[in-house]
């Protein structure tokens, strides 16, 4: 009887270790996703803008020319980059709050201003530098806060948390899936 309990505990401990490793990998991926949202959004906007400027002004009464604008390689690349932005943004929204994702990815505005200054050698006014400082400050405020505060979908419950609940309650894993407070889910988010 004792031997069987020891075996079960050992198995649980191993499962916890495996899951914590997976959580760490996902955490790194989550940072990559946020960085991807920022970079693809900024790059998509600037490439699309460059392509549209090459085409010149388009009248709203001449809709076919808008469709043919897709044939411009810069416009096509801009659309692909913005599609990647949308997919990554939706991915980020699946595991983080809206009020976390929006400020965290607003560094794209800063990237655009910095690329205008250092790549395109445009003049950046004092007000714009102040804007960059404020956005960076806002991102800094968000960086230390939990990624998810709302009640998560049950699919977001990691096996690690289910195993922790089971170990605490002495019930089989998954039995307490619906009772988990949101704060526990937070600990498995970007913060960990």
């Amino acid at each position, binding site marked *: 009887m004792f031997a069987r309990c020891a075996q079960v505990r050992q198995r649980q401990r191993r499962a916890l270790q495996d899951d914590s490793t*997976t959580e760490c990998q*996902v955490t790194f*991926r*989550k940072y990559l996703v946020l960085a991807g949202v920022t970079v693809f959004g900024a790059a998509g906007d600037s490439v699309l803008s460059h392509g549209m400027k090459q085409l010149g002004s388009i009248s*709203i009464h001449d809709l076919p020319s808008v469709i043919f604008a897709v044939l411009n390689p810069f416009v096509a690349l801009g659309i692909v980059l913005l599609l990647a932005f949308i997919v990554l*943004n*939706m*991915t980020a*929204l*699946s*595991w983080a*709050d*809206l*009020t*976390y*994702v*929006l*400020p965290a990815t*607003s560094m794209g*505005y*800063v990237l655009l*201003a910095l690329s205008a200054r250092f790549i395109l050698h445009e003049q950046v006014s004092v*007000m*714009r530098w*102040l*804007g*960059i*400082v*404020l*956005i*960076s*400050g*806002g*991102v800094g*405020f*968000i960086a*230390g*806060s939990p990624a998810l*505060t*709302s*009640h*998560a*979908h*049950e*699919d*977001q419950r*990691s096996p690690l948390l289910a195993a922790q609940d089971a170990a605490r309650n002495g019930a089989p894993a998954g039995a307490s899936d619906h009772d988990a407070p949101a704060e526990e889910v937070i600990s498995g988010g970007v913060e960990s």
Partner: protein
Amino acid sequence: MKHAYIWGGILTIAFFSVVGDVLLARAMKQVGDVHALLRRAGLWTVVGRVLTNPNIFMGVAAMTVAFFTLLFALSWGDLSLVAPAAASLTFIGNAFAAKVFLHEKVDRRRWIAAVLVATGVALLAG
């Protein structure tokens, strides 16, 4: 009168952007953590769940309305006013809407972040 049109347009853009963001965020919470789903059930399950969620389509529709309102607003007012004002209002509106409709805990830190980013965007694009 022209100012009324411009600010009406800006408020409409911000409203539909917030509606779109909130609907997309709600839809993705209903779909579940994409990383975990990909690991457990594969890509097609994720794609299926996303494409069968009505909130996604309503969110995209709201964002489309916001985009076309932006086009109209740009014909009435300057880009340097319309774009940053709409973006800033969207940031603040999202914080309110996320608290009310998505039940996110928008604490003082998140409010400060939203206000800083909104002000920064207004200064950057203005």
